[in-house]
């Protein structure tokens, strides 16, 4: 039984016209920052801390940048070498407007380019949402380099697509209600309103104002045309993806909230069933980004997973 989270009531928006505030103080700053280059593209990354195994935080959709992991990086950097990077389209990465730059295969290649640029032989991958497919492609093509997969709220071609989200992206619509905002014409008119809507859906747990504000700020670091080009990026079909998952040999953990309005929980359930031996941690009442909204729980689940890798022969 899936319990609906209480909906957030309408809230006064942050003061309009205000400049984006400077980034708040971090709990920890990177030891190294760099740019990985691949096929003329530039991918910004950060490296923190030391200790095996290396943990790489894989970016989801470039509507956010690597600060989406701000509640994880300082904690894991106390014991591990940590790598975080920005998907092309946001953060310190470039802003390509060719859909091919945003294909799942391209993201997997970017992931490997960051591993190479940081001289990382192998790593545990922790990915949110759309990071799941590129992470699985990387694990399937380079099993020797991927020690484990943690897939939070995976957005994959399995399970139920939330039908309310299916709207024509590039047609002029006669409504702006709800998911009709997921439309390039609306983005060009009022991108910030779209971001507020999207992250209001993503963080539908009560009292999520700070997480929403943070994420809207990350979204304001990209632009409608760049983000629009990601919509046409392609990925594997359901059958090919399922076949790839069934052949995976690395340990995997799926974490999914049953109030996820962005990527239905059935996706995480089916994904964990498809990956041999994968563990499924269900979060009752959680939305799409439990790493930000329930960071303590998610951090402890990731720690437990990493400990279990050490116990392996």
């Amino acid at each position, binding site marked *: 039984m899936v319990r609906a989270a209480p909906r957030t009531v309408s809230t006064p928006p942050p003061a309009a016209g205000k400049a984006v505030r400077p980034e708040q*103080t971090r709990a920890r700053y990177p030891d190294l920052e760099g740019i990985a280059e691949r096929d003329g593209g530039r991918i910004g990354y950060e490296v923190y801390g030391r200790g095996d195994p290396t943990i790489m935080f894989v970016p989801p959709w470039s509507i956010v940048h690597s600060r989406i992991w701000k509640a994880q990086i300082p904690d894991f950097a106390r014991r591990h070498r940590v790598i975080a990077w920005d998907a092309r389209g946001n953060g310190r990465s470039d802003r390509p407007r060719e859909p091919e730059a945003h294909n799942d295969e391209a993201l997997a290649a970017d992931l490997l380019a960051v591993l190479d640029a940081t001289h990382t032989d192998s790593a545990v991958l922790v990915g949110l949402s759309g990071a799941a497919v590129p992470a699985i492609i990387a694990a399937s093509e380079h099993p020797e380099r991927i020690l484990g997969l943690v897939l939070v709220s995976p957005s994959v071609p399995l399970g139920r697509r939330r039908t309310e989200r299916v709207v024509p992206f590039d047609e002029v619509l006669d409504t702006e209600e709800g998911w009709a905002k997921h439309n390039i014409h609306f983005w060009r008119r009022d991108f910030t309103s779209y971001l507020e809507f999207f992250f209001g859906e993503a963080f539908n747990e009560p009292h999520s104002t700070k997480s929403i504000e943070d994420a809207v700020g990350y979204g304001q670091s990209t632009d409608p045309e760049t983000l629009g080009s990601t919509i046409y990026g392609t990925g594997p079909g359901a059958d090919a993806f399922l076949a790839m998952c069934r052949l995976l040999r690395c340990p995997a953990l799926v974490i999914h909230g049953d109030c996820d309005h962005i990527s239905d929980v059935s996706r995480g359930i089916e994904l964990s069933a498809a990956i041999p031996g994968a563990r499924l941690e269900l979060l009752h009442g959680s939305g799409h980004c439990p790493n930000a909204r329930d960071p303590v729980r998610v951090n402890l689940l990731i720690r437990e997973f990493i400990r279990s890798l050490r116990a392996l022969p």
Partner: protein
Amino acid sequence: MEAGRARLPDRTWTRALARRRRALYLSSPIGLGHAQRDVSIADELRRIHPDLEIDWLAQHPVTTVLEARGERVHAMSAELASESAHITAESSEHDLNAFQAIRRMDEILVANFMVFHDVVETGAYDLVIGDEAWDVDHHLHENPDLKRTAFAWMTDFVGWLPMPSGGEREAFLTADYNAEMIEHVERFPRIRDRAIFVGEPDDIVPDDFGPGLPSIRDWTERHFAFSGYVTGFDPTPLIERREELRRELGYQSDERVVIVTVGGSGVGEALLRRVIDAYPDAARRVNGLRMIAVAGPRIDPALLKAPNGVEVRAYVPELYKHLAACDLAVVQGGLTTTMELAAARRPFLYFPLRNHFEQTRHVRHRLERYGAGRHMDYATSDPEVIAEAIAAEIDRPVDWRPVESDGAARAAALIAPLI
């Protein structure tokens, strides 16, 4: 195995009845004041439980006070992210939106909670005491399964209040934060085994938590016990030996000593400069005026241009003694320093930081209840206004309500039954 060969155990465990009583104490590093009151509560607790072992999970500037007293600072304290550096980063000229600053500290609070979690997982503590340890209180309520010890929560204010500059949005946000806190406490009464309000019910502001939410006072009276104010020192001997104290500290009987102190953060630099600028005018109005400006650890004294008659000091050990001996103090609106002055029965001018809801609302309410100090508005106080106020207040009769001196003992008596 060879006899006598050293071997460290993989794990140790102590039988329950073979254990000493152990507490982990967290003292908020925002402002210098918590440290002083917390060590005096710790002393009172050790008086009740002589076998009590206290570890401190603490950061600068609290560690300065603890190390000076030889308290045990837990080694993992080094892994904490700095709250006070964040607060400094959030502030500008005599301005700190304290609500937004704490809100924008969320990353640091999660990181520090994870350190706390590791410490209590292995430390065999019976009790955690959190004096405005926002990380621990918030994340324990968010993760009630992680509670492993008794927990005593202490605070000197309840309720986030909006500042007018934040408009409708800030009013909405403070109400939402208050609502979450109320839901946390009412849903999980088992998290705070003891909640102590450092003060009396009359110190609580008359506001509501927000639209449709309870009165702060009614709710706090239902959910907290009251320790009275905790001064961190007994003011009585200082008041009685004031003349002697002045001689010890090198203040002449014909001098009128003004001490300017702006706390441990860098926020106070603008006020410090402005009060120093008021000195020449004030010295014309008050014979024998001597001004001592305390820069604190985060302001470079060399950068403050002081005229003759003003001494700038980086750090003054046992500042409270100087405050007890002075003729007038000029301070920010922080609770600890203003209440130390009220307790030591010295006149003072206080300038709450702009947009700081605690200083402009909670602390001011409390000081007005005692009738101590003169509230000053930084925005409208030029050096001339400050000089006038110094001259007017320096001879003010000390007629306000005495500050209770048994707060630490009362707080300890409330906490002690948990161990």
